[in-house]
């Protein structure tokens, strides 16, 4: 992971090595995964997934800055926009379920099996 164009990277960014960014985003990502695994409340699972997406965003921005390449940041905008759309649909589904069952505990949803 050698930055290809060292000269163009501003001093401020170089003060923190790229590896740190990778580590923190991976940590955030794993926290998100653990959240999904351990929680039963649909909204909290959902928030954990958002955490995973934001970990990705952070990673992309870090790479983008270190490479002085804007496409990474463009991708982040796409992710944010799509994630917003996803949130609206996801919340709608959760609301629909809450209306029908008065609960958003995913552990109770196991009618479909085998």
């Amino acid at each position, binding site marked *: 992971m050698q930055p290809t164009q060292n000269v163009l990277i501003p001093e401020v960014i170089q003060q923190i090595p790229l590896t740190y960014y990778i580590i923190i985003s991976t940590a955030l990502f794993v926290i998100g*995964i653990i959240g*999904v*695994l351990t929680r*039963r409340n649909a909204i909290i*699972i959902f928030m954990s997934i958002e955490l995973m997406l934001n970990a990705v965003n952070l990673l992309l921005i870090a790479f983008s800055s270190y490479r002085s390449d804007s496409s990474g940041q463009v991708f982040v905008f796409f992710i944010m926009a799509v994630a917003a759309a996803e949130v609206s649909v996801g919340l709608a589904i959760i609301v629909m379920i809450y209306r029908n069952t008065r609960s958003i505990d*995913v*552990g109770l*949803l*196991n*009618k*479909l*099996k*085998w």
Partner: protein
Amino acid sequence: MQTDLLCALIPLFPLIGFIINGFGFRRIPKSLAGAIATVAVLASFLTSCFLFGAFLGNANLTSTAGPLKAVLFDWISVGDLDISFSFQIDQLSLLMLLVVTGVGSLIHLYSIGYMKHDEGFGKFMAFLNLFVFFMLLLVMGSNYVIMFIGWEGVGLCSYLLIGFWNTNTNYNNAARKAFVMNRIGDLGFLLGIFWIINLFGTTEYTDVFKQATSLAIGDPEILAITLLLFVGAMGKSAQIPLYTWLPDAMAGPTPVSALIHAATMVTAGIYMVVRSNVLYTLSPLTLEIIGGIAIATALLAASIGLLQNDIKKVLAYSTVSQLGYMFLGLSVTAYTAGMFHVITHAFFKALLFLGAGSVIHAMSDEQDIRNMGGLRKSLPVTFITFLIGTIAISGLPPFAGFFSKDEILAHVFEHNKVLWALGVLGSALTSFYMFRLLFLTFFGEFRGTEEQRHHLHESPATMTAPLVFLAILSAAGGVLNLPGGGWLSDFMAPLFEGSRQVNPEAFAESTIDHSTEYILMAVSAGVALISGIIAYVMYVSRGAVPAPETTERSMPEQVVYNKYYVDEFYEAIIVRPIRGLGDALYSFGEFIIDGVVNGVAWLVRAGSNQLRLLQNGSIGFYVFAMVLSIVAIIALRFFVRF
């Protein structure tokens, strides 16, 4: 060009018949449906005859090995592999064509009478036509892929026809069993084809065999290919261990048993081996294995046949046993003899099944020979033709079975004396159970109910006419290949040029002189005759009838204790051991082999039942499984070296 058209016509006729009857079976009247189906097959037969005449007339073709190819269209191409939809007309496919369409038309004719009262008549005829169509594809195709399509197609039709009387669950199970066993064989066949593609880059017979002639004998890849192909033949031609479906297949209507499970479909395996004779000649080990399986099948099935009381079951086991003989012939590279037996067997076994059908028809669907007897007076035509069939299958001169079986045994004798002795033993058993069947059915007193006695009648002309035709063929079929270089061997000789080239020793001129040959003939005929006489003594002179399942078998002996002391001895020394052996082998066949097959099915179901529990409906578990798999994949990829 003209021949191309003719070739295309042969399978087209039954297909048209199937389409007409298959889509219109509700509207077409029964008489018309039967006529359409029969005419369709008859038209194929006449076309085949014409083609055969043209082939014989064309001296060029008969003298050289080059087959006639009719490419209908280029079919598929995958990468370098090109498969065309084409037919190959040579000696082998012509013979099979004549047998399939000839015997097929007789059986269609017979079905008109036999199935007249069945409500699914139109559908039945449509299925029969479809079967003939696929069978023709199987024997006419010029590459393994077309053969495989025919192969699967006949399996499907056989499945549909066995389960034709589908209201009965047992029949459905029989149909499913036949299909599953055939599929097991087909898998082997399919893998064999892929291996051929891998090795030769083509599936066209002519190209494959041309390339194969340059290989060395005992090439391991050829060994694998021939074994895989033979697995396919085991399924289709009912050899150990995949034979148990055939007796069960007797659940289908009798014409089906005659056409599919005796005369044509079950010989597909033989056809395939003869077709691939170059490959098999290249692999002596495969031939050894085939020989072992074949003789075991022949003896096992024959000994089971000794004790069966269902008229169709006896014939079914006899078919399995005769198929064993055919493979026995192939295993000593007596390909012509094997094909010869295929042809004669088609005649007499179709005859026997149709005769049995006639009996069943007359007896109002009674199939148990213990409830028959004395039928020769009421069913004279059936009796005489059945008698001819029995003599033919028992191998008594001068009927067809004698010549074909004798030729196989003569080749076996040359190759391996022990196999020959076992073969003669099987021949004796065959003769015994066939005559037992004949005597119990047609001789003695009538043992059925009063109602059945009133109903007894000779079958209509549409049923007896095919019987007479087949009887003539069974009686005279032997002239096709008389001992000492008959017409058939000359005719088929060009087919085996390739084999002769790769392994000249296997095709060396017969080393046994004429006197030995005559002795061999006399031995096998004599053994068959003696078994027939024993059967006569047991079932006609003494009038013995197999005891019904409910009574103790030793009861009749109590009565005749003093008079028949000899019989007791005979019972203890000969009958008991044979019966015990038969029972033991029967249980081996039916329970062990079925058990293995059913066991696999059970295992799959049980596995399914366990596996589906993984799908426990909880999102948490699903996500957990995913995460675990991701970790596993990454760990596998980076920490395990492979």
